[in-house]
């Protein structure tokens, strides 16, 4: 196995920061339900969930240290997911 292919070791400090970030975002996603956003409430919750998924994929699942192809594939999935939600909200926002 060449040096480039060796697994990247992420420091405990980084993991700790990401964990704290995820906990903060979870609290925020609960907190935002106290604000009246009507049909955008679900959108707000999904935005927080998407940011959290990004951190999990990027750091915990090592996408940051992987080949660019995999990052592009994950990005494509995110964009597709976003597009599907956008089309769904065309119904919800205009009902």
């Amino acid at each position, binding site marked *: 196995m060449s040096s480039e292919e060796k697994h990247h070791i992420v420091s405990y400090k980084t993991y700790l920061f990401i964990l704290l970030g995820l906990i903060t975002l979870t609290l925020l996603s609960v907190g935002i339900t106290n604000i009246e956003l009507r049909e955008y409430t679900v959108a707000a919750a999904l935005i927080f969930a998407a940011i959290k998924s990004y951190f999990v994929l990027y750091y915990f699942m090592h996408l940051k240290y992987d080949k660019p192809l995999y990052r592009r594939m994950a990005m494509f999935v995110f964009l597709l997911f976003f597009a599907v939600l956008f089309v769904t909200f*065309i119904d919800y926002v205009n009902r």
Partner: protein
Amino acid sequence: MMALFIVGLSLGLAMKFELLAPGKTIMGAQDYNATFTLHGIIMIFLIVVPGLPAVFGNFFLPILIGAKDVAFPKLNLLSWWIYIVGATIAISSQFFGDGPPDTGWTFYAPYSFKTGTNMLPAVLGAFVLGFSSIVTGLNFIVTIHRLRCPGMGWFKMPLFVWSLYGTAWIQLLATPIVGITLVMVILERTLNIGFFDPALGGDPILYQHLFWIYSHPAVYIMILPAMGVISEIIPTFSQKHIFGYKAIIISTMAIAFVGYFVWGHHMFTSGMSGTALYTFSLLTFLVAIPSAIKVFNWVATLHKASINLKTPLYWALAFMFVFMVGGLSGMALGALATDVYLHDTAFVVGHFHYIVFGGTGFAFLGAMHYWFPKMYGRMYDAQWANTGLVIMFIGFNALYAPMFYLGMIGMPRRYFDYLPQFHAANILSTMGSWVMATGFFIVLINLIRSSRNGAPAEVDPWHGKTLEWTVPSPPPVLNFDEIPTLGEDDGPYEYK
């Protein structure tokens, strides 16, 4: 899978027999509801979605790209076991609990969590089957990325492989959505959470969104591999390079992508917003373009070709006819004004079966007759094969074409009974079902007999140019003694 298909076919024949005359013929309303639900579950989740990828994808994908096997053979086996477990759970819903499910294969909320019938096993079975689909999709994507033989660039891959690639992405990305949706139905039934219940702040239209976000792309899981099969058969029997190779690839991937954004055309009468209706109708018309490109390219390939009229080509031509009828009738359903009138009528049943049975089913039988010599190392009796095809084709059209008429004069679908003015067309349709079943059994028996007693097949009986025609018939366990290498001028359709 063949046994399950015969069960599904028998249920379909029973429904058509019930509709032979107004009033109760052989079953009442509740039995009819249960019959079309089980028919749908078996045909969609157990036959049409996994059919072409599982049978021909697993067999031919590695050979077509010059590989010894798929990337993860054990994952492949796991997919098969998941399929068996899912099928067992789904079908078990018929035999215990409070009676067979009666919602239709779409499990629409709120009825699916309010009905007293045995819904949980049916929904759970569909949920488990989704994993089989996801695992196969993942396996195919990795196989195509990693195991192509030396010299096989992306634009030297056979079109069936491209169609499996597009299909695999849909399997991987869309199936989890229906998985989550079905879990929500289970939770709704067991814990009364209220996702889809307006009384608890839920939204029943959300169910339809979630269900069709998967289930419309699932139509492309069904039809893309079918189109891939036709794209293999036509150049082989035209002895000619396929017209617009790259255009077909682009249209395949365009269908796979745009197909994600048209689900709302199943919901035009659900109470969606007007803006959403216009958007989905526009997107629906857009997705027809790449399908039309393919049909144009197939016809252009046949133009001025040295056509070799053999059974697989007859199936491909039959496919093109029924697929065009299904596709053009889909335009009537994609347009808002006509859909409001035709929604939930027999017209929809006719359209759906022209696409899914006529499209995927005919392509499956075409693939069977195309690759049969390679799979079994024996030839089939062409005369019986052609006879079965002609009878089945006539029966198919007699069965489903009257449904367009019945829908247009107002006969609703999913009712065991109907008004007297619908009687004549229903008699024709029911008799068509008998003719079609006769044709199918001729085809089936001929293939079974030929697999045992047929004349030995040559390595390349159709003079094809793809890699499966370079290995013995049937192929050895690991396909190739030595991994092939493609040269500059080699390609899947290089007929000279």
